[in-house]
């Protein structure tokens, strides 16, 4: 135990040292903490009070909502897990057995102020259970739920770190997600009702069921289910953790070339291919694709209103925003040196990055176009292409500026965190506005729409070119600073 305590002491020290040294990390945590504390102070007491009243009357609707919220918040661990300084791979060189390594990894998550706040909020959320019929058993069930959420998030994190498992598990999960999304979209209100029925058997609802149970059987069944679920997930975590740390499967097979599906011609072709390959390895770009796939599948059963397609295009860009605004985030310091060695101007480096992102966005949105032609006609398809082009130019223009001024380290197979949320929000607004204006103009009957749309398109192009040139020059002068920032936030 002394060894674990020692490691955790250094883990804590390293975490906070980085917190202090990296401005963006501090900004990120301060914003997230402000939002969470604000929500806890303003919304939570009222919700908990209502949940307490309902539980005393044997109802669980509000408590279900509270437990669902905290269950989902625990998934934040998936993001935080990537931010620990003393990683398991570093620690495995010490004489520490796997169980202790896993213990260190789980406890390391609590270095983060966000994880600590979620833990405090979770404990606070147990208060309504005092008014429930089964206070003690309900509390035990709730603690099992939080443990389940934490361990599940750790499990997902471990699985994502192993290439072989990513390939085997993520594809079936994506298919299930697309199918559910398509059902939800195609059935509208009925779909929501069906999802609610399915949700009745989920862990948060099991906790509520225990807390209001009137018979021993009504306690034993959900409680046993939670215990079994925890046991299974814990075993899965231990097994996957061991395999990920010591197993050969952690390696990619040698000799497999980067796939050439998303090929790009020209002198920069090789670099563009590499860039899109990097961007593809962040989790941020996948929800957008899944959303488009779900919409496409839903469209097979019947036409969706054009506004759904148009909204999806805007949302896809918002999903991508952290990657677009931090295009050097996946690079190492050594890779930035290579950019300096290659005979490329800063503007060309940025252009290569932008082309890589364009390939990704193109792949994300590609299915929408034929479906729009099929269901709504070529005019609607053209409108979607136009909106996507304007959105792309506006997002890239802002993204280039932020990429060279406020870079932060991103991890492969993780959602981007650590960025400044305010910058992200401003970027989302600036990047989306021209596209939304174009969509409004396209949907309006005004006679000057065409000229206005052409104006917005031209303006976006000019702003993009100015941003590309300025950011490229700035990259040449700030490459060392960017490299230092990326090193600091590893």
């Amino acid at each position, binding site marked *: 135990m002394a060894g674990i305590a020692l490691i955790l002491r250094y883990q804590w020290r390293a975490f906070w040292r980085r917190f202090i040294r990296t401005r963006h990390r501090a900004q990120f945590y301060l914003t997230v903490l402000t939002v969470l504390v604000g929500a806890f102070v303003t919304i939570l007491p009222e919700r908990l009070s209502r949940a307490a009243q309902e539980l005393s009357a044997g109802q669980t609707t509000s408590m279900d909502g509270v437990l669902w919220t905290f269950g989902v918040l625990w998934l934040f661990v998936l993001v935080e897990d990537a931010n620990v300084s003393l990683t398991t791979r570093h620690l495995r060189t010490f004489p520490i057995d796997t169980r202790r390594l896993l213990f260190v990894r789980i406890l390391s998550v609590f270095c983060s102020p966000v994880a600590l706040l979620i833990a405090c909020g979770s404990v606070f959320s147990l208060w309504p259970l005092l008014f429930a019929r089964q206070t003690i058993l309900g509390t035990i069930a709730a603690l099992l739920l939080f443990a389940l959420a934490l361990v599940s998030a750790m499990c997902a994190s471990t699985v994502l770190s192993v290439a072989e498992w990513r390939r085997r598990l993520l594809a079936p999960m994506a298919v299930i997600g697309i199918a559910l999304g398509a059902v939800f979209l195609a059935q509208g209100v009925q779909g929501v009702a069906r999802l609610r029925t399915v949700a009745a058997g989920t862990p948060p609802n099991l906790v509520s069921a225990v807390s209001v149970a009137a018979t021993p059987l009504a306690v034993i069944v959900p409680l046993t289910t939670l215990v079994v679920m925890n046991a299974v997930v814990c075993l899965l975590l231990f097994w996957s953790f061991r395999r990920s740390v010591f197993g050969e499967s952690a*390696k*990619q097979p*040698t*000799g*497999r*070339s*980067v796939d050439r599906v998303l090929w790009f011609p020209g*002198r*920069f*072709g*090789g*670099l563009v*291919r*590499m860039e899109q*390959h*990097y961007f593809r*390895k962040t989790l941020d770009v996948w929800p957008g694709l899944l959303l488009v796939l779900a919409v496409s599948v839903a469209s097979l059963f019947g036409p969706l209103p054009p506004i759904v397609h148009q909204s999806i295009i805007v949302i896809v860009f918002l999903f991508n925003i952290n990657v677009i605004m931090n295009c050097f985030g996946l690079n*190492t*310091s*050594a*890779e930035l*040196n*290579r950019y*300096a*060695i*290659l*005979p*490329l*101007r800063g503007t060309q480096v940025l252009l290569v990055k932008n082309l890589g992102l364009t390939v990704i966005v193109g792949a994300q949105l590609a299915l929408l176009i034929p479906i729009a032609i099929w269901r709504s006609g070529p005019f609607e398809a053209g409108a979607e292409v136009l909106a996507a082009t304007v959105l792309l130019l506006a997002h890239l223009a802002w993204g280039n500026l932020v990429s060279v001024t406020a870079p932060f380290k991103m991890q492969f197979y993780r959602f981007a965190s650590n960025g400044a949320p305010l910058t992200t929000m401003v970027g989302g607004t600036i990047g989306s506005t021209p596209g939304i204006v174009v969509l409004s103009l396209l949907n309006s009957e005004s006679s000057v729409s065409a000229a206005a749309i052409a104006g917005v398109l031209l303006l976006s192009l000019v702003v993009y070119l100015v941003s590309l040139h300025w950011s490229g020059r700035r990259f*040449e*002068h700030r*490459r*060392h600073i960017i490299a230092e920032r990326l090193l600091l936030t590893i």
Partner: protein
Amino acid sequence: MDNPDHGPWGIDARGVTKTFGSVTAVRNLTLRVAPGTLFGFLGPNGSGKSTTVKLLTGLLPPATGEMFVAGHAVSPENIALRRVIGILPEDAALFHSLTIWEHLELSGPLYGLSRQNTRERAIQLLRHLDLERDSGTFIDQASYGMRKKCALAMALLHNPRILFLDEPFEGIDPGSSRNIKDLLVTLAAKGVTIFVTSHILEVVERLITQFAIIIRGEVVCCQTVADVQRAGMTLEDVYFKHAGKPAIGNLAWLGSH
């Protein structure tokens, strides 16, 4: 930006200083290397060798001083300079998600080589460096030596006039090391200026024609190997004369079980 007056020199640095905060990594570096010279840049760990390579290749801007390489002013913006130099940096500067072959394949066209030409040269370089069988290996799974050789192949691919090699023999197997040494000698004979940093004095002594020793950021000695031999000394003698012999600690407890 480029100055033809500096043309006769492969490398010409005048009064170059580089500071990192309060630390002076390189102090008043003045160095002239003629074309076709195999120049050794020696010094202990942390003496400023790699920083000097970064300065001379434009990877780091100096605080003061001016530098010309192959007649081109050294600056991070000078693309013409980058086209005529080849660099094997300290960290190899490779992309971890690409294979060795893909590194060469993407590098050639950026230097203006056709794809066909790139492929032909890449095959020959990989064969020479004994990397042919490993060309499909991803960089993040390649050994340290393989990464070095890949970065060296990238440095040579575009047939540079000046080569900067930071510790080229570190982690390289004896066979490849021999091939690299032969290649460097041949290139120097053809007029390519080669700037090599190394810790391995026995290796560089047989290879280089001229050298400088840098200690704590200052060049303390710059002479030819022929001069050293004429004085009846070895490179090691000269090195320890300037760098001093390291202190020996009392490690008697080691091995006492």
